[in-house]
């Protein structure tokens, strides 16, 4: 028999009084829910900063031969934008949702190592702040010469002392290194939590897909991040001890950095998208009123993607002149990874198929995710075609491609997750009307921004140029991209207003506003200090379905 605790507010924590006590409470917390919220909030804060950096770039590129900012500032903007969005927005927000939700979804009281969890968060936050300190340290103070301007993948030997005399690259290395330690700690913590702390009856194959995706992400973090750390340590040695790792003038190799970086970099892309797959796999079934289609295949596809993501890194390096046979191998491997990805998309379609769809904001984002992610995936397949990649790699086509994946994919999934779990986290609903406005404006804005980028790439516009000549036929496409940025910005403003307004005056949510099926909805909103009392035990993948349909429980069919 499935056992579920009754949601009661009796065990709600006593709210500390006074601002100092509250701050102290948040700073010293080891509670996975508070840390999760801290992760998400800091991530969204960095999202705003990264977005403003993108805006400066779009302003500069709105017209040919523009002079809003000079080359130095522009180069800093795209470096910081990329680094911020990958390391300080994508990872923390996704890991933050994992932090918040995983113990709830597997029916336990906290993460496996709560103090390590807090350590991970503060490492991430101060790593990010260290990176941004490079801005303040400009004009000679501490000799940083402003923010890093080497691109988010910081190709050697541009990062060597010879070509970067200040300390800005060191800030980039150390900021990411420090926040990387935090991510590794959180990755390990997630894996251990999922493997060791599942509630009674929750076998691996009864875990929600979201939990599976976090398990896989945790493994990828464990495998990919240390390689980046090692590469960054080598770079530090090069810069401070004069070692020869990446110095081609002294028999080092400029390509070793690329191999190490992309061995991290490609799994990293999946670290950013696999949790998003998890969100979508939770949202789509609930708003289709159907069980997830092909659960086993979904799990297999996740694990398949994770393994294969370690054998595709050189598809970022088709233009460096690898041996033709290597090019062919990495192209084939990249094509192959499209298959599990396709399986996932088809399974979501299968879940929608025959359901009864209601279009609340989370569902809109989930459907938007599927639509946009398919576009990004397909341009990804095109880019895996080596000769086509020779044409458009490092052009705006690539920029358009990965923004469809990371914005239309990851960011849409994050917004979907925020709308879906906000009631659980705060006890209040976000405004549906504002949410729908935001969705449609964002959808139009993102297509307006990133769609034309494919065309400017095809027309021969390389990425990372701060200016372009007026007579190249690029004007209109860049202008469209810049207008699209403004449209997106409006959507983000609506979101900000929505969050603030709903926090104060939003409708009370109750424990289970979406009539959902996974364990986090079995406790109060927000959950009490120890999540469940007593701890639940489950007999199927949808314990709340069993509870709501005692005459027809799931476990008789699984």
């Amino acid at each position, binding site marked *: 028999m499935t056992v579920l605790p009754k949601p009661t507010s009796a065990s709600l924590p006593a709210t500390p009084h006074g601002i100092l006590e509250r701050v102290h409470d948040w700073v010293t917390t080891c509670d996975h829910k508070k840390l999760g919220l801290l992760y998400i909030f800091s991530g969204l804060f960095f999202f705003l900063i990264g977005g403003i950096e993108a805006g400066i770039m779009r302003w500069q590129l709105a017209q040919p031969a523009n002079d809003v900012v000079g080359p130095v500032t522009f180069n800093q903007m795209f470096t910081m934008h990329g680094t911020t969005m990958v390391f300080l927005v994508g990872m923390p927000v996704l890991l933050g949702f994992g932090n918040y939700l995983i113990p709830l979804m597997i029916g336990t*009281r906290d993460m496996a190592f709560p103090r390590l969890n807090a350590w991970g968060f503060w490492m991430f936050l101060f790593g990010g702040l260290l990176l941004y300190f490079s801005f303040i340290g400009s004009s000679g103070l501490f000799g940083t010469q402003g923010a890093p301007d080497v691109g988010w993948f910081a190709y050697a030997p541009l990062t060597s002392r010879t070509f970067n005399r200040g300390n800005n690259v060191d800030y980039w290395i150390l900021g990411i290194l420090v926040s990387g330690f935090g991510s590794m700690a959180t990755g390990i913590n997630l894996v251990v939590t999922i493997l060791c702390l599942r509630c009674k009856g929750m076998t691996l194959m009864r875990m929600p897909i979201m939990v599976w995706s976090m398990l896989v992400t945790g493994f990828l973090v464990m495998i990919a991040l240390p390689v980046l750390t090692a590469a960054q340590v080598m770079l530090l040695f090069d810069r401070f001890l004069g070692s020869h790792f990446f110095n081609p003038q002294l028999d080092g190799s400029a390509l*070793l950095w690329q191999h*190490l970086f992309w061995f991290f970099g490609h799994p990293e892309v999946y670290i950013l998208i696999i949790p998003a797959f998890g969100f979508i796999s939770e949202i789509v079934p609930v708003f289709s009123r159907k069980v997830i289609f092909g659960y086993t295949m979904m799990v297999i596809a996740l694990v398949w993607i994770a393994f294969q993501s370690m054998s595709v890194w050189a598809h970022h390096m088709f233009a460096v002149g690898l041996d033709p046979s290597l090019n062919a191998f990495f192209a084939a491997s990249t094509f192959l990874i499209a298959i599990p990805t396709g399986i996932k998309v088809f399974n979501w379609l299968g879940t929608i198929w025959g359901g009864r769809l209601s279009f609340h904001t989370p569902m809109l984002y989930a459907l938007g995710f599927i639509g946009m992610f398919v576009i990004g995936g397909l341009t990804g397949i095109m880019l895996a075609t080596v000769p086509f990649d020779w044409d458009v790699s490092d052009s705006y086509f690539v920029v358009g491609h990965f923004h469809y994946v990371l914005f239309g994919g990851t960011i849409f999934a994050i917004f979907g997750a925020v709308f879906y779990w906000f009631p659980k986290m705060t006890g209040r609903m976000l405004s549906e009307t504002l949410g729908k406005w935001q969705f449609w404006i964002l959808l139009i804005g993102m297509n307006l921004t990133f769609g034309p980028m494919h065309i400017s790439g095809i027309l021969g516009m390389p990425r990372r140029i701060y200016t372009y000549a007026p007579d190249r036929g690029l004007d209109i496409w860049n202008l469209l991209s810049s207008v699209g940025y403004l449209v997106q910005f409006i959507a983000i403003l609506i979101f900000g207003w929505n969050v603030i307004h709903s926090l104060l005056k939003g409708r009370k949510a109750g424990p289970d506003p979406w009539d959902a099926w996974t364990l986090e909805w079995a406790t109060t909103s927000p959950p009490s200090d120890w999540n469940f009392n007593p701890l639940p035990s489950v007999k199927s993948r949808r314990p709340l379905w069993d509870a709501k349909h005692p005459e027809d429980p799931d476990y008789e069919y699984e």
Partner: protein
Amino acid sequence: MTQAMTNQTEPHALAPEEHHLSKGKVGMSCLIITESFFFMAFIVAYLYYVVILQVEDGGPNPRELFYADWMVYGASICLFASSATVVFAANALARGQHDKFRSWLFITVVLGGLFIAATAVEWTDMIGNKGIWMNTCTFGTCYFSLVGFHAFHVCFGLTALTLCLVLSFLGKMPTFQAERFEVLSWYWHFVDTIWIFVFTTVYILRVYT
């Protein structure tokens, strides 16, 4: 469905009885995976530059660089032996034989210390007498970073083991800590295992240079 739950007494009891996986052991395994990938990058760099490319950058031939073969082999034997003694120590602690635990742990720490001493001798010789450091040649770059990171991990493990020894002498190492000590011993085994790879890469493969 509203049947009461068993686990109502202790809110801090995190591990439900159904799963027997230990957090510590799984966590340590995860850490070991992570660390292995960290070392992999340095081993790849060493193999690439020193063994495969064998770049001619005026640097010396790695064959003739090392202090003495007997010392490297001796140090390796010490390290491998310490993996066995730490197991004896862990078993002793689990059985509550604290004197035996202290003796085996002491031997482990001494063996690990010998290993570090050998590394120190080799480094002193390399830096002081032969004038090789990270910035002199690609061999120096790869050798010092790989061996250095391994030695750093040995030092870290040694510190932890010494701490356990001190705690044990202070009587703060009760039998119920046996599992935690076992987890720590896993880390020590990992440091040993990495040495097999480092040893192979640096000392055995030098015959090909």
